[in-house]
């Protein structure tokens, strides 16, 4: 049984790569700067938010230059937001294919997450550029923990696949999800310390919400590894692990349960 699943998966790995490749080609076709946009966009967004928060709102004391603080958090969160919303519609968008050829349907969700992950890798280059700039000016120091950033990245990836599986399955039956998800991710983003320091929330009545927010753990660990040279505590690590693996299995369970009925609704 498991072996058959695995064989099915292996057989469709070329498709996974082919679809990712296609998305990549189509995204930059006919644009002048092409792939440079993947790096330029996060930088421009960083400039916008830094201007707004430092000049207008006068946010201070994030413990590092604000632009570094923002771009480390945003890189990870934007990956999650992009992966979840694009995998949400992946089943609906591939209706014509699903109706005519047999393909394991989770491939579409996985592909969107993989594509977003590749995009994140490009944002990572931009992020490294910003960090290096501040290393040169002496405001940020590099630590060896930087080599461990792949751990929270993989956690977020698994978490996103789980959420993507749930959302894509639900959106087939209730398209409302598609409309509300944009709002929800915005709320989610503001509940994650990306543009404000964590201690701004301490003492607030809704501080517990942050504790329940999986993205908080991923972003916090990512930033600590990247900038502060702090290795996350064991309980942070365990919480992250349980959250992402748990979400992944819930997603698989929901998806498998309803996937045979997709075709009747798309």
């Amino acid at each position: 049984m498991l072996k058959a699943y695995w064989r099915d998966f292996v057989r469709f790995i070329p498709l996974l790569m082919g679809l990712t490749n296609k998305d990549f080609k189509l995204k930059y076709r006919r644009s002048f700067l092409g792939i440079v946009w993947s790096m330029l966009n996060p930088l421009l967004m960083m400039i916008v938010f830094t201007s707004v928060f430092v000049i207008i709102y006068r946010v201070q004391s994030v413990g590092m230059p604000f632009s570094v603080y923002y771009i480390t958090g945003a890189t990870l969160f934007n990956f999650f937001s992009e992966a979840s919303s694009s995998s949400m519609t992946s089943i609906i968008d591939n209706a014509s294919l699903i109706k005519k050829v047999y393909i394991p349907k989770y491939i579409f969700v996985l592909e969107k997450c993989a594509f977003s992950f590749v995009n994140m890798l490009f944002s990572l280059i931009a992020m490294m550029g910003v960090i290096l700039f501040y290393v040169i000016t002496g405001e940020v120091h590099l630590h060896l923990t930087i080599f461990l950033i792949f751990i929270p990245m993989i956690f977020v990836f698994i978490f996103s696949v789980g959420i993507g599986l749930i959302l894509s399955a639900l959106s087939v039956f209730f398209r409302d999800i598609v409309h509300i998800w944009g709002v929800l991710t915005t709320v989610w983003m503001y509940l994650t310390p990306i543009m404000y320091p964590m201690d701004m929330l301490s003492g607030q009545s809704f501080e517990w919400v942050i504790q329940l927010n999986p993205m908080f753990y991923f972003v916090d660990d990512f930033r600590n590894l990247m900038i502060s040279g702090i290795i996350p505590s064991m309980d942070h690590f365990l919480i992250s692990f349980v959250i992402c693996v748990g979400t992944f299995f819930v997603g698989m369970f929901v998806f498998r349960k309803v996937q045979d009925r997709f075709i009747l609704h798309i």
Partner: protein
Amino acid sequence: MNLDSKKVVVQLENVSMHFNMSSEKLSSLKEYFIKLLKRQLFFKKYVAIDNVSFSIEKGDVFGIVGLNGCGKSTTLKIVSGILKPTTGKVSVRGSIAPLIELGAGFDMELTARENIYLNGAVLGYSKKLINEKFDEIVEFSEMKDFLDVPMKNYSSGMVARIAFAIATIVQPDILIVDEILAVGDFHFREKCTKRIETMMKTGTTIVLVSHDIEQIESLCNKVMWLEKGKIKMIGGVKEVCEAYKNS
């Protein structure tokens, strides 16, 4: 997979397929609850296939005939694993190449060259295999001059040529053909028919749906006649086709 005899490659046992007509356009939560309250949710069942059982043996060319909406395409989709039947059991032995709608996996923004690789992957072929067969695909489809043109600029016949060439590049154990030979010019249709005939000779099982009764008569050795989701008649090509034509 429990197939009765070694020679049977496709077997459907008491297969029924129900579509929920009312749920078809139910796409918002509000609608769902309104319908739930009105108790209309699970009404209006449409039976596309009703308790159908048949088996296809290795090497058969199995034709399915019937009027529009009698369940032919649904049957093909069930055999190829795209649809899961509501009740009943389906057993299939061997690899399947479904030619249900040509070009289903194409992205019209991409060029033909890119689409050949993508569509090959959709059908589960490895990149290496497509590399090996690439020239053969291009040659068969006769589209060499248009390889790097986005496919949105292709005519439907040209799309069909590429699609047929990819889908039949590997000899499958079972080939499923749904009305696809209707596109393309006569020259290409001849070519397709020839390729299918070669496959027949070398042991591929073929399931064919067509409204062209002459095509069925010339290709098939066994025919099933569906009417409103039920088997009206099944058996040798001559008797079924005669009865169908006289109905």
